[in-house]
């Protein structure tokens, strides 16, 4: 008897993948670190907080409800393990941990739907209490029903900037300003997106319009942001078209788009390619989501940032590929349909990337912390690059300890690669990527091993 397939992640991509496998008569194992399904965008509250789904998910409430319900209906037909981290992958085996216990699962077919995390570039003051990533600010609202402050500034680039600012506004928080690092002219590119995904685009415009109507200042072309405060955020300063701006606030939500959580794909041995659009290496995949390793599929934002609707389509498409590769009957027409939807959404992502560009020429000041875990400043990194003649990011890590701390570079490796590229005058792709190793997140030394086999 063949072992069951394993899906890592119960966000939109993982949920759709599970539904598709179940429909084909398989009984997948679904593992997610979070205590409940939904992933990042449709994350559920830790404890009921009295809000309605519409209050929590806004315009996306219907989609959230549908996915939550449909996943709940799968309960008896899948082996669902919430609150469980996949900390390592070896050939055909995944290592899990939950409550300090370790477990391993043999599987046949692996769908990685691990989603994304915020991308940040260090700015002066970014490590002050009161500074949160944009996604973190949203999770606080969604999962805990709490705001990160009373007077919040939103800083960065990307569609989440306006969405989260708007969600805070609706939650009754004082949104002090939206500071967009992209110039206003970039937003004109959005027109090209109207035909590709009019709903998402119009929603975005509505968020901006409502923020404006509520009197929230929106600034474009924001440069050299500087978060100030003594022990806690009290204000933010920036430059803008030759002028300087300054506002008092008690919290800052900051993000420059997202980056895929791809450590498991690396542990699975998947080949990676550089994505110009995401400015990072992403797992190589075909249109169906097959990685370079047979039996391993990647779907959703974990394979390259495409958003929640694309994640649903990609999860279903990857599951169809697994079904086909297993020699079971699959719906080829549906597969083609999903592929063309994904193609359109990818073109939409191109438009979004042009409208919310990453600030390429961002210069990180020498005294700004670059690696938060190891407390290494940008200046120390530059000195190490010069002293040891470094051109490659794993070497930079070796001589500077950047990326060697608790987060193993999840947070800082993007910024370190940007800095290394700047210092050496090469493209960020040439700086390379940090080699990944287990564990994906820290595990206790007293981790106990308990072996279990899961069969169909």
């Amino acid at each position: 008897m063949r072992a069951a397939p394993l899906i890592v992640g119960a966000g939109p991509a993982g949920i759709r993948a599970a539904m598709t496998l179940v429909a084909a008569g398989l009984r997948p194992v679904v593992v997610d670190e979070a205590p409940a399904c939904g992933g990042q965008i449709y994350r559920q509250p830790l404890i009921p907080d009295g809000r309605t789904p519409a209050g929590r998910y806004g315009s996306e409430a219907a989609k959230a409800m549908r996915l939550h319900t449909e996943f709940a209906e799968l309960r008896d037909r899948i082996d669902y393990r919430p609150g469980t981290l996949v900390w390592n992958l070896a050939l055909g085996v995944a290592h899990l941990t939950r409550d300090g216990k370790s477990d391993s699962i043999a599987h046949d077919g692996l769908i990685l739907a691990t989603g994304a995390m915020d991308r940040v570039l260090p700015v002066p003051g970014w490590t002050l209490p009161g500074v949160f990533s944009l996604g973190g600010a949203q999770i606080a609202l969604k999962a805990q029903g709490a705001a990160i402050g009373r007077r919040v500034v939103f800083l960065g680039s990307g569609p989440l900037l306006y969405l989260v600012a708007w969600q805070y506004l609706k939650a009754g928080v004082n949104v002090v300003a939206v500071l967009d690092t992209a110039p206003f002219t970039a937003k004109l590119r959005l027109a090209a997106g109207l035909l590709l995904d009019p709903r998402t685009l119009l929603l975005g415009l509505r968020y901006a319009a409502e923020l404006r109507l509520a009197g929230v200042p929106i600034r474009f072309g924001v440069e050299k942001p500087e978060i100030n405060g003594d022990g806690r955020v009290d204000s933010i300063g920036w430059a803008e078209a030759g002028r300087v701006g300054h506002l008092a606030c008690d919290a800052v939500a900051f993000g420059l788009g997202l980056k895929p959580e791809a450590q498991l794909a690396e542990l699975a041995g998947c080949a990676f390619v550089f994505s110009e659009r995401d400015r990072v290496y992403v797992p190589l995949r075909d249109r169906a989501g097959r990685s370079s390793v047979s039996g391993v599929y990647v779907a959703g934002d974990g394979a390259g940032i495409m958003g929640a609707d694309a994640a649903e389509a990609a999860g279903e498409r990857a599951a169809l590929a697994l079904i086909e590769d297993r020699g079971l009957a699959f719906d080829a027409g549906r597969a083609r349909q999903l592929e063309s939807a994904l193609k359109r959404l990818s073109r939409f992502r191109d438009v979004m990337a042009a409208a919310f560009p990453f600030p390429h020429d961002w210069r990180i000041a020498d005294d700004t912390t670059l690696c938060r875990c190891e407390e290494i400043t940008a200046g120390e990194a530059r000195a190490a690059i010069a002293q040891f003649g470094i051109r490659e990011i794993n070497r930079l890590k070796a001589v500077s300890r950047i990326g060697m701390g608790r987060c193993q570079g999840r947070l800082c490796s993007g910024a370190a690669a940007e800095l290394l590229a700047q210092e050496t005058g090469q493209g960020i792709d040439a700086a390379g990527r940090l080699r990944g190793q287990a564990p994906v997140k820290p595990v206790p030394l007293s981790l106990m091993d308990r072996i279990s086999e899961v069969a169909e």
Partner: protein
Amino acid sequence: MTGMLRVDVAIIGGGLVGTSAALSLATSGLSVALLDKGFCGAQASGVNYGGVRRQGRPPEQLPLSQRAHAIWPELAKKIGIDGEFSRSGHLKLAQSEADMAALEAYAKAVAGHGLSLELIGHNGLRERFGWISGSIVGASFCSGDGHANPRLVSAGFATAARRAGVQVFEQMPVENFTAIGGGFALETATGLSVRASQVVNCAGAWADRFAALAGEPVPLSRIYPSMIVTEPLEPLLTVNIGMEGGGIYARQVERGNCIVGGERGVALDDPDFSRPTAEGATSIMNRTAAYFPALAHAQAIRFWSGTEAAMPDRNPVLGLSATTPGLIHAFGFTGAGFQLAPGVGEVIADLVRSGDTETPIDAFSIRRFLPVANKARTEQGSSAVPSTEPQKTGVPS
């Protein structure tokens, strides 16, 4: 990079062995080209456990080890950084009375080598190293041993070599070398060719290829020692820890992280890279928690492994080629070359300059692996010494 370069010495491999030899040779006025297929120090020399110990080595390695021992405290002078070298002492633990007897026997066997070993009983351990589990029977302490940061030491030697005038070529794999008219021609994958009077083969786990090119096939195998590292913790491990009979080895670095090694990893699809197994890493973690109870709740943040050349008798190959004048071999350190490397670099420099060295290295001659027919023709053919290394499992520490 294409073209042709003429130098006195070409060195294949920019690990610690190659860079320390290069530094020593350049300092004595020779022109040196150092070629590495990747980046200097990115292989075993930069990713090892960081144990700088003499204790536990077989007696025939001790003179070489002592030569290196004298260099370690001088790193700041030699390469400009101290590489976080700490003479913390190396404490080798006994889990049983039999282990303790083996430690006592070792101390007797190496008594003439100046290691100043101190045997410590159970009560002594409880008093001086109370953080070690009471299940440990006793230990042998070598106060002159210690540990250092391999990432910094290897990068430091490479940088110092470059400053001393060594022409360092990274991402430039040597593909072939041939002896021509009293010297050598080296061909690289990128088209650069190097003419040199002498060649040093210190290509680590890849050195067997170059030995074979010289008609000296060796039984080199690759091993992948596994490491885990914790988050930074309060100071606890005051010494570098090893265990009689293998097991784990542990040290705490300046930053506070505890590094623990043991077990063996597996090669990846690209066999130049490797990874610990989950079972191996879990076993290291569990044993660490058992031997050092205060670490039970510490968290491991990363596992890793490295690629190391191992010889069947656990001694390196170090010395002149048996077939090719002008060729020097230095590889196969079998999990224990980090401490030796600075000494090995000097020995290589001696051999280049004079064809000889005062440090006894006969036991490491490549002749011990030559087919018997060849061996009979060489006078040092009997120099292969069976290993007396008491660490049976061959773990580095």
